[in-house]
């Protein structure tokens, strides 16, 4: 019990929670991107991949609950830490930081990404909710594709042939068609690109701060960790946005 | 006045051991029934407060800074001496003892110095155990360096921040006791008077510097660890807040003030840059290991440099006067502090100073850079060169540094006996605040040693001797007439300071006083000057009480009021310094009387007539204080004349 309170009730403990759940979510973001990229291998590949995930059954639910738990803890600790931070500094300085060594301003003023973690995080959370409604719960009202019902997109066992009338749980979902239909709507794609951009912005600071919070950073390896954070964020950004861009450019299309 | 030093009998090397056995002990179960007040939280105060609390006494500790960690011990750079002989170079307790007595120009008390040398070894053990990150060798053992011209390497150090690290060690012990509830800490609290009951020190009156509240605190004994009085000169390397108030008010209550004329001037400080100067900054003495001190041979060249028409590099080698190397061929630039300082003054008095004010000489690293390369010089002194550049804006790799002596440490202080108790029973004085161990001149790296020796290893034993004779319930109620009366005195003084409402700021008086003392009672003193000062200071004091302007009120944080109170004490104390300098018709250590010098211009001691501690007794306002003498007897060390030729 001591151990648990030590984690959840102290500043440093909550930073661990933040870092560890952040690491888990980063893992999810990477796996999700790799899965999504199968769209470039054609309908069969991505649909089969989706079907396999679905076939995991209870395990899938374990993963989903785990993810949800991580998201919950990540947000909880973020809100808790942020509210403490606000209480710790209630008065802002009147003057903008202008050090006598002007070139040092960049070091002294908190980087934009670091300053805005809570905002980028909350916007990403809102986007994630939309994204789930869009592709997982398949709410027609929000996909912007003229009330297209993604619930009706199914494929036969060859993962390619669309079915006129599929059934949840019996037939395989036509994920490929959902993606293409979904991203053909420019507004949806733009929102997606912006959200992924924010996510990567969030990661560019979060990944490096994670190493710091877990205490595995030092001067020797810090530059490499920072490079890793920026590099991974950039790759993830490119990986994700390649899909809507390809759809809009008709590089990926149905048929 | 009874100035019995209570030096234990027996051979020098056994005095302390014997004395520790002879000292009365306080029953362990009774210690918690005693309360001790410690004023000051520097090396001596923090170590004393922590150690007394460890022993079981209840301690109240007071400091004027916002945290005990900020006492001015923190600014000591060089190191701390200890007779560990880790370097196998022939050091010993006896050698450290001998060097300290000799360095003090035979004006310190032998038995105290020997004890200091003895316990010096314990200090290093204690500090290492506290986690003080002393410099180490690759083998993991402690590193040493030779310091201040010592012939052995006995100085322990932590980069250029030894004082800081030792103070933080003592502060950590103190913090531990505060956390345990054995020490009650009062930061931002200034002691304004000591309370005597039947001649014994029984408490103090303090002012809370945030709220202005005056309060009375009683105890079974009072320890003053309030540092030196270097700020009497206004400009010194002391911190802004360093003051004489605690010791001076104890003096006014009957404690004898010993050797106030002994002040140490440090030769390598950054020169004054203008009238705005608030304090002076010391540069480590180690710079003289490689830097060469010089001025131009000709006054006209110096004049041109002062006007900015010439640069140091324009002066040809043959036109330079490396006066320390010229006059002291064997020690050269490494002559002791007082000798270096005095010669610098002479060169400047001769019109050959090289900074705008005329008060500065060159400390040149050109040869060292040629010989060792800039990178080697940077490695040795990089942080000092950086500090120099920060303050002066000048790059000392390209242009020579300019330096001038500044007041740095005061050897005088309240008179104490071997037990560190003043002539007022129950009033102990430790660290720089007492007079005891350095005689007329302090050796480098010995101030830290003395502060910690007193606080960790001497006072905690000797205070038992007094407390064992005081019943635990013999504690004066703070509502007693003595306490109330003392508080009234304090309040009256504060009201008086606030009510003058004249035109001049406390700083302006302080600056003027400092100038008088620096001119007449500084590096070189003479009868005429001292007599003039003794006339001028009371005049200034009179003006102070007629024309002082302290804005605000007592009931809030009022830094002008704090300062005014301190300046008021300096204005009285300065006169005492001059009186002491006047009576001491000889030159010794930091006290140089121009009338008493050898034909070569060196200090000339008069052992026959002045081998005594001059302890002054307060006789009342505007009365001439009375001089008492404690004769110094040298059993172990033979007096010789110092020579650095």
């Amino acid at each position, binding site marked *: *019990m001591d151990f648990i309170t*030590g984690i959840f009730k*102290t*500043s*440093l403990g909550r*930073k661990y929670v933040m870092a560890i759940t952040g690491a888990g979510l980063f893992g999810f973001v990477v796996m999700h991107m790799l899965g999504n990229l199968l769209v470039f291998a054609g309908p069969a590949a991505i649909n089969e991949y989706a079907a396999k995930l679905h076939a995991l059954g209870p395990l899938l639910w374990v993963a989903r609950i785990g993810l949800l738990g991580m998201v919950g803890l990540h947000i909880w600790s973020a809100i808790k830490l942020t509210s403490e*931070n606000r209480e*710790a500094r209630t008065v802002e300085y009147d*003057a903008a930081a*202008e050090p*006598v*060594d002007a070139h*040092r301003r960049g070091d*002294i*003023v*908190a980087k934009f990404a*670091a300053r805005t973690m809570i905002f980028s995080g909350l916007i990403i959370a809102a986007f994630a909710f939309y994204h789930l409604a869009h592709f997982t719960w398949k709410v027609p009202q929000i996909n912007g594709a003229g009330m297209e019902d993604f619930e009706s997109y199914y494929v036969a066992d060859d993962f390619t042939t669309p079915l006129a009338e599929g059934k949840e749980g019996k037939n395989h979902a036509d994920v490929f068609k959902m993606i293409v239909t979904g991203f053909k709507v420019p507004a949806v794609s733009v929102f997606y690109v912006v959200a992924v951009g924010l996510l990567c912005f969030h990661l560019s600071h979060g990944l490096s701060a994670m190493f*710091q919070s*877990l205490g595995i*950073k030092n001067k020797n390896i810090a530059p490499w960790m920072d490079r890793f954070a920026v590099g991974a964020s950039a790759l993830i950004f490119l990986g994700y946005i390649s899909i809507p861009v390809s759809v809009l450019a008709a590089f990926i299309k149905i048929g | 006045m009874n100035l019995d030093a209570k030096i234990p009998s027996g051979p020098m090397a056994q005095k302390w051991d014997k004395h520790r056995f002879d000292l009365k002990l306080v029953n362990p179960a009774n210690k918690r029934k005693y309360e001790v007040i410690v004023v000051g939280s520097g090396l001596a105060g923090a170590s004393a407060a922590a150690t007394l609390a460890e022993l079981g006494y209840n301690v109240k500790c007071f400091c004027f800074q*916002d*945290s005990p*960690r*900020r*006492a*001015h011990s923190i*600014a000591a750079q060089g190191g701390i001496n200890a007779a560990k002989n880790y370097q196998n170079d022939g050091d010993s307790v006896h050698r450290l003892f001998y060097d300290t007595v000799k360095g003090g120009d035979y004006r310190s008390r032998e038995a105290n110095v020997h004890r200091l040398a003895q316990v010096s070894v314990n200090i290093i053990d*204690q500090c*290492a*155990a*506290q*986690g003080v*990150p*002393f410099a*180490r060798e690759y083998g*993991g053992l402690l590193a040493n360096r030779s310091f201040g011209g010592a012939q052995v390497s006995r100085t322990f150090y932590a980069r250029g921040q030894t004082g800081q*690290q030792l103070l933080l060690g003592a502060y*950590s012990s103190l*913090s531990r006791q505060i*956390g345990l509830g054995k020490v009650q*800490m009062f*930061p931002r609290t200034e002691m304004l008077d000591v309370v005597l009951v039947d001649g014994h020190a029984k408490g103090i009156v303090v002012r809370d510097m945030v709220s202005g509240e005056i309060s009375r605190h009683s105890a079974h004994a009072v320890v003053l660890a309030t540092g030196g009085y270097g700020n009497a000169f206004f400009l010194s390397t002391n911190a*802004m*807040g360093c003051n004489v108030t605690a010791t001076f008010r104890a003096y006014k209550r009957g404690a004898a003030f010993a050797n106030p004329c002994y002040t140490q001037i440090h030769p390598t400080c950054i020169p004054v*840059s203008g009238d705005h*100067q*608030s*304090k002076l900054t010391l540069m480590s003495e180690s710079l003289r290991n490689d830097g060469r001190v010089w001025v131009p041979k000709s006054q006209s060249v110096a004049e041109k440099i002062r006007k900015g028409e010439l640069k140091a590099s324009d002066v040809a080698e043959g036109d330079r006067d490396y006066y320390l190397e010229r006059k002291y061929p064997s020690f050269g630039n490494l002559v002791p502090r007082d000798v270096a300082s005095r010669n610098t003054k002479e060169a400047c008095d001769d019109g050959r100073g090289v900074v705008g004010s005329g008060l500065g000489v060159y400390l040149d690293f050109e040869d060292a850079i040629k010989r060792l390369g800039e990178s080697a010089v940077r490695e040795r002194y990089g942080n000092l060169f950086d*500090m120099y550049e920060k*303050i*002066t*804006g000048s790059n000392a790799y390209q242009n020579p540094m300019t330096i001038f002596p500044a007041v740095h440490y005061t050897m005088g202080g309240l008179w104490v006996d071997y037990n560190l108790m003043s002539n007022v029973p129950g009033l102990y004085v430790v660290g720089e605040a007492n007079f005891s161990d350095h005689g007329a001149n302090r050796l480098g790296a010995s101030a830290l040693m003395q502060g910690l020796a007193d606080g*960790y290893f001497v006072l*905690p034993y000797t205070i038992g001797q007094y407390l064992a004779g005081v019943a635990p319930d013999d504690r004066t109620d703070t509502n007693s007439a003595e306490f109330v009366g003392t508080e009234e005195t304090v309040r009256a003084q504060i009201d008086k300071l606030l009510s003058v409402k004249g035109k001049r*700021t406390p*700083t302006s008086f302080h600056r003027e006083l400092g100038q008088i003392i620096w001119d007449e009672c500084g590096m070189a003193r003479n009868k005429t000057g001292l007599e003039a000062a003794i006339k001028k200071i009371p005049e200034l004091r009179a003006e102070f009480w007629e024309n002082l*302007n302290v*804005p605000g009120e007592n009931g809030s*944080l009022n830094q*002008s009021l704090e300062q005014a109170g301190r300046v008021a004490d300096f204005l009285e104390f300065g006169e005492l310094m001059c009186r002491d300098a006047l009576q001491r018709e000889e030159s010794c250590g930091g006290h140089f009387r121009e009338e008493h010098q050898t034909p070569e211009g060196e200090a000339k001691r008069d052992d026959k007539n002045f081998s005594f501690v001059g302890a002054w007794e307060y006789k009342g306002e505007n009365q001439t204080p009375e001089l008492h003498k404690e004769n110094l007897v040298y059993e172990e060390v033979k007096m010789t004349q110092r020579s650095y030729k």
Partner: protein
Amino acid sequence: MDKLMNLKLKVWRQDDADDVGRFEEYQADDISPDMSFLEMLDVVNEGLIGSGKEPIAFDSDCREGICGSCSMVINGTAHGGQKGTTACQLHMRHFSDGMTITIEPWRATAFPVHRDLVVDRTAFDRIQQKGGFISVRTGSVPDANAIPVSKDESDLAMDAAQCIGCGACVAACKNASAMLFVAAKISHLSLVPQGQPERERRALAMVKQMDDEGFGNCTVTGSCEAVCPKEISLDFIARMNREYGRALIKKGTI
């Protein structure tokens, strides 16, 4: 002698902890570039007293960058932002004629303002009292050379131990986090062998007190390191995080 400067100061004035406070403007004329920043304030204060006003209260003591008393935010930057420099060591030659300089106290809930630029930093002392020490009684210690300490570790401990406790890290941090200060102390004592027996207890106790004092959390912005007059590295915060995790696993809480 370089040219004298005339400056405009915009200074935070607050009578006591309960006062709401306000900015007041002052003229600082004939300022020499050789003055330190605090000497410039001395000059302004002498003028204020002369005109019957109360001087600007600010903390300062050693004025050589080691006691950690001085504490002011100059133009939005703790200590003025010259690398590795306290306000007392900052000199006016870095400013230019005609400039307006804004001076504010450290801003943090855990550092309430006493008056003007003077703040209460006793929170730092209370953190130290919880564990910033090695519990050794005077006298009961082994010979100093009985326990060898590797030079590298000792040097690293010294890097951390240099902290002057000025609070600039808290002042600069947008979250008013005291982690750089606490990390410096925990790191110093955990790096030397003498500090090992209390290593876990110390980390847990000091972090808890830090939290209780109302300091914010680290969001790894690095502002603290950038303004630290002793240039204490952010690495020590990582080390503290590691120490804390280790202590949690070994000991739970205290």
